[in-house]
């Protein structure tokens, strides 16, 4: 057994012993989920309908309710949600195990994520696009009868156009005539480019020019000359102009142009540094929430929200 395998096996063994010990020998165990039964009544319909909904609750509330009345049914242990916590925790560890080295557990987790995501997108696409935006527009009565009881619109035959284009797009999968899919694709590219062009032109190109037209000497009626606002505006204008000069390649970057371009590089570097700093903060936040999940929801080693006994 080589050194890396020995470390992996040792870590797994220590982890397994710790978890088994915690599950079997700690007073309340770990990684359990509880639900509260809530009765929902519908007053809008002709019949008086009611059903029970299960909402997440805390371990503290569950034990307090059991202590008060051991036969109560309002608060219950939820096996499905408990399994959810355990699967989420184990998959988090599987994914993190890649940091040590590539391994079969990581591959399993990766494949499951890809498969589940694809299936999820397919289901979401059907229920949020095909049903309400296509079938619901073409035949609202039929959709209302089985899928969207609140649908209250008239049929719009114009939606036959996207239906036909959708079929044309799927023609790509047919053995012959795949060129037919290029027509709706061209339409999609054209409309997307048009919509986005206007958005960028208006909000970014023109908007940013307008945002850069600012007073270099700021004087306010309340405080008079505002030094810091003036300095801030001057830096913005110099930063924009020098960065633009850096990307202007029609003139050789020599003399004044070269020096201005160099200043532009400094501004760009500071921007990249700020972006990197923010990215680091974002990534650490993501790691922190996973570790918090493992310590809090799964292992019950911490309880920052004070929800457990």
């Amino acid at each position, binding site marked *: 057994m080589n050194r890396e395998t020995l470390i992996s096996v040792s870590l797994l063994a220590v982890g397994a012993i710790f978890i088994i010990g915690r599950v079997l020998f700690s007073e309340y165990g770990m990684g359990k989920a509880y639900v509260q039964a809530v009765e929902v009544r519908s007053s809008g319909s002709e019949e008086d309908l009611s059903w029970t909904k299960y909402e*997440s609750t805390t371990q503290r509330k569950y034990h307090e309710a059991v202590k008060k009345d051991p036969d109560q049914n309002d608060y219950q242990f939820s096996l499905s949600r408990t399994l959810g916590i355990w699967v989420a925790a184990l998959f988090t560890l599987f994914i993190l195990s890649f940091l040590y080295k590539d391994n079969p557990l990581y591959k399993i987790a990766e494949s499951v994520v890809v498969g589940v995501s694809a299936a999820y997108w397919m289901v979401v696409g059907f229920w949020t696009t095909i049903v309400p935006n296509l079938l619901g527009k073409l035949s609202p009565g039929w959709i209302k009868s089985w899928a969207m009881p609140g649908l209250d619109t008239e049929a719009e035959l114009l939606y036959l156009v996207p239906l036909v284009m959708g079929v044309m797009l799927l023609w790509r999968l047919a053995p012959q005539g795949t060129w037919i899919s290029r027509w709706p694709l061209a339409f999609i590219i054209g409309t997307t480019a048009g919509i986005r062009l206007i958005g960028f032109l*208006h909000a970014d190109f023109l908007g940013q020019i307008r945002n850069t037209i600012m007073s270099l000497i700021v004087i306010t009626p309340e405080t008079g000359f505002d030094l810091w606002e003036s300095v801030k505006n001057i830096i913005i204008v110099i930063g924009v102009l020098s960065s633009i000069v850096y990307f202007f390649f029609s003139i050789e970057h020599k003399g004044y142009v070269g020096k201005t371009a160099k200043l532009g590089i400094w501004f760009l570097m500071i921007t990249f540094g700020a972006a990197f700093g923010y990215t*680091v903060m974002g990534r*650490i936040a993501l*790691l922190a929430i996973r570790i918090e999940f493992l310590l809090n929801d799964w292992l019950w080693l911490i309880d920052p929200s004070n929800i457990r006994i």
Partner: protein
Amino acid sequence: MYEFLKDLDKRWIFLLMFLCVTIPIYVIAKTGKSFPEVPTVLSEAVFQAVEDLGQGDPVLLSFDFDPASEGELGPMATAFVRHCAEKKVKMYFMALWPVGPQMIDDAIAKVIHSDFPSLVYGEDYVNLGFKPGNEGVIKVIVTDMRELYTTDDIGTSINDIPMMKNIHSVQDFDLVINVSAGYAGTKEWVQYGSTPYPDKIKIVAGCTGVQAPLLYPYIPNQLPGLLGAIKGAAEYEKLVIDKYGGNDPDPKYLEAKRRMGPQLVAHLLIILLIILANYIYFVEKKSGVSV
């Protein structure tokens, strides 16, 4: 030291990072203490935008994120809902991301169901759910809400929801609050919302750290306030708690503040690693080793 650092296995760095994040989380959770936060101008602008609203004013909350960024954006979403509930404004939730409705449900359960049970669905808040189409959705609803939203998230007709009576487009909202993890999100709301209708649509946002630098150019004309990453969330949490939290605030409203502890220690490690990496670079450059 140079020899040791030169060939250091990167897995030691991963282990160090793990400890730098785990230990502060554990210590802060056990002691209940966290680092102080000083709100910046941008966080104060977001807070003030909500604070300026009156009772019953309509506010659109677009939660455009998913569980992958919940760690960063969840605390912001919670704080926004709490602030809106305290201000007694009418909350209209929507999402441009398919998992957004679950994020909305979480925030509603966490804040409204547990701490504001008197708020009535359909009268004080409504979940309009997810609509596919990214910026296309924004482009349509800025002029006609009913073109896309015929029902709410659970299938109730829009016409049967009392609080939808006077809402015809996004221009009817007094404020749009966007919590965004990427495309489609704050950038698209600025491009197709506040930029074409600067006098009618006002947007404030909370976003992930990766997005924040891309949104700074829109401040303040197109985007009056922005909460950048977990730091922005912690600052906003502090402002909301200072005003509405009382002496013993519920720990669920202090999530972002708690998560700033691991941020501090992990950032110190990153700074140390950058210094050490530069030290190796300059030593190798001086000794003529190809770098």
